[in-house]
């Protein structure tokens, strides 16, 4: 079944690249790419802090850390080019059906932003 994407909360170049790569690598049932940079100590319009919510068959049988590594690897280029923080929620379709709850990212505490 064709992967469907959820609503995006940002449309900058980094957000687009993240979305494209994750769609290509994971054929997700659900994908949200949320730019959370405005909640951090960075200039307006930054694309440095993101959250992704991704539901994919590819996570079946994989531990949490392995799922995160798969996502990190897919976005390695973005990490080399200014992506500073990535909060990941990675679930299988069954887990998503059981609980579509997404934890909130913690508040910025002002630290070193480079």
């Amino acid at each position: 079944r064709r992967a469907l994407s959820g609503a995006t909360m940002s449309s900058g170049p980094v957000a687009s690249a993240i979305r494209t790569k994750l769609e290509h690598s994971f054929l997700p049932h659900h994908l949200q790419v949320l730019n959370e940079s405005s909640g951090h100590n960075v200039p307006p319009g930054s694309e440095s802090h993101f959250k992704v919510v991704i539901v994919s068959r590819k996570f079946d049988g994989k531990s949490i850390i392995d799922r995160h590594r798969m996502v990190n690897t897919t976005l390695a280029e973005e990490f080399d080019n200014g992506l500073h923080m990535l909060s990941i929620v990675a679930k299988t379709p069954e887990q998503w059906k059981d609980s579509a709850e997404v934890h909130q990212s913690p508040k910025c505490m002002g630290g070193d932003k480079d």
Partner: protein
Amino acid sequence: SLHVRLRMSPAIMIARAASFTAARALLRPAATLYPAASLVSARRFCADSHDDFKPKRKAPPTGTPGDVQERIKQQVEGAPLVVYMKGVPEQPMCGFSNRVVQILNAEGVKEFKSYNVLADDEIREGIKKYSAWPTIPQVYIKGEFQGGSDVMLEMYQSGELSTKLKEAGVPISEGR
């Protein structure tokens, strides 16, 4: 009076000057704008011009990348629970680092080793290579990388973290 040997450079003569009067005599006129105490020390005289004399906020580099990886290996294996974070447990400087600290508190962890990556650029970059993980915070149990803040949260919610901490012999408060 000071016996001056003219073949020495002015900087050396300044550094060796035994008295303020002798030091002043050796300096160019512009230097008299500096306060008296600083004239005797050549190092202070150069304070604005060289990085070596600037106050350092962070730890100085220690060696090659290989040395850093070895240093990290010693660190992660040096305690049953090790956290690389921004800031310190008493005062985290990042919401995600703080979340890890809060989770460990909720688990009843009595003590753990932490490293502040904001105080050491070598460790900050080295730890990302060591674990092949691009972000901070990072948690290690018995020398093995466990994940970052999101992974910690999921493991805490599922109970998996509690099990791992007990198996590793991390000191936990009674009644957990």
